């Protein structure tokens, strides 16, 4: 076998082995590269910064599942940290049936950390007053439209089966008028439906945290201003983690930063393999032509 044939026919087991090393290695080494913040991530961060404390709430629609957790879960944690650090009430909900478990985990991770370090009531977070998780609801298009009339009408009980009327936060916020922005964390088309229905009817501001595969579809919505900001993929999550760290809302970086190192190494590896494959292809073609 000639050298150019060899580099274009590398056994897939070799590729898989090198890939595994590239994914695992960054978790055991400590290196940090400066993140160049994308404008749409900064836009979302700035929007949250512009919301006055203890005024309007942020509604987070947790619509991701375990499959896309590595990209969307760090986004949820960074976003919750930012909102709570700025005393912005958070209401959570889900239209993806697999999402509630992850939403509960993200909220519990952040609230437990804040409450552990709290010195007074002002520093701590109370369920029902500072945050609420409403759980899952079927018929998502009808539900998101109807929430414009009454959130408690669509979600009469929260995820833990408590009546939402008993929560001071839901007494203050019963429709989109008291919601500063709805942020959808998803790996599918939920943000598009939020833009098509509740935004066009009630004018609610929409933000998104999407997987890297989904993000390119939403660039037109950023340009038109229908999306008030967007985190795209693990990079978006790492950027948001960096933003809240540099602004003093978090003490350390989250999991997306480490994930980005793995992802970068895998991307470099894929590029190297594609180049090798193409070199082999060109030399093989050249050889074929010369033989003809």
């Amino acid at each position, binding site marked *: 076998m000639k050298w150019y044939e060899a580099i274009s026919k590398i056994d897939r087991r070799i590729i898989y082995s090198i890939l595994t090393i590239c994914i695992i290695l960054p978790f055991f080494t400590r290196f940090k*590269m400066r993140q160049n913040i994308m404008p749409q991530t900064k836009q979302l961060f700035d929007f949250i910064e512009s919301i006055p404390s203890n005024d309007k709430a942020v509604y987070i629609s947790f619509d991701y599942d*375990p*499959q896309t957790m590595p990209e969307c879960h760090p986004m949820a944690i960074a976003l919750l940290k930012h909102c709570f650090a700025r005393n912005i009430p958070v209401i959570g909900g889900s239209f993806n049936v697999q999402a509630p478990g992850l939403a509960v985990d993200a909220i519990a991770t952040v609230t437990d950390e804040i409450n552990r370090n709290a010195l007074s009531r002002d520093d701590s977070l109370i369920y029902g007053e500072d945050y609420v998780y409403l759980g899952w609801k079927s018929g998502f298009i009808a539900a998101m439209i109807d929430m414009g009339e009454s959130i408690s009408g669509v979600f009469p009980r929260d995820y833990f089966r408590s009546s939402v009327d008993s929560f001071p936060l839901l007494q203050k916020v019963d429709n989109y008028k008291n919601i500063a922005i709805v942020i959808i964390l998803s790996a599918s088309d939920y943000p598009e439906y939020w833009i098509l229905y509740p935004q066009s009817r009630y004018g609610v501001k929409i933000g998104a945290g999407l997987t890297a595969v989904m993000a390119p579809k939403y*660039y037109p919505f950023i340009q038109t201003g229908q999306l008030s900001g967007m985190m795209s993929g693990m990079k978006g999550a790492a950027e948001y983690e960096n933003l809240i760290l540099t602004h003093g809302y978090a003490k350390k970086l989250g999991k997306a930063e480490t994930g980005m190192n793995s992802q970068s190494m895998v991307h470099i590896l*894929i590029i190297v393999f594609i180049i090798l*494959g193409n070199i082999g292809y060109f030399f093989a073609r050249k050889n074929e032509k010369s033989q003809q």
Partner: protein
Amino acid sequence: MKRRLPLAICFVMGVVMIIQYFIPHPLSLNFGSMINKWYIVLAAFALVLAIGNLIRHHSKKIQKRKQGWPYSVVTLTSMFAMSAIGLFWGVAPDSLYQLIYLHILTPLGATMFALLAYFMSSAAYRAFRARSLEATLLLAAAFIVMIGFMPFGQYISTHLPPFAEWIMRVPNMASQRGILFGVAFGSIATALKIILGIERSWLGGKE
């Protein structure tokens, strides 16, 4: 009658809901809200149907000892066990339900999706060849976006991240907008065909 009644309901409700959407009068809003609540309940029934179908399909498979029937046992056992745990012991952050969800279902789901990285890298290596001008352009764009979006990219050239962002904001956006327009027009045409009774495949059967 069997076909005319659903067609009539579809036409009336379709037209009424379109008109209702553009009238912000309390009467219209209350009507819209009521219909939306009906829709939410109907969608929940679809879930019940799905569960029923799942039970029937896997029960038959187990009864007839078809290939892979032990997996059906695992599916049904998991479904009933998780339902019972959630219903009787709750779904609080420190509950057994949440523990199983986070430590069994989540790693399993993440693992399945993570396998894609292996298949994609192997497929990209084998199939991504600069065979034509279009393929070369695609390859170049993919390289620039991949390197530009990596933190590593800014160390190669400070112009790389803005250029990658430009690719996303201009050529990508133009094509995405074109697709969006196409989908929107297609959706409007299909919706009108269903409301007017031209498209009847949703009724099932022939004709």
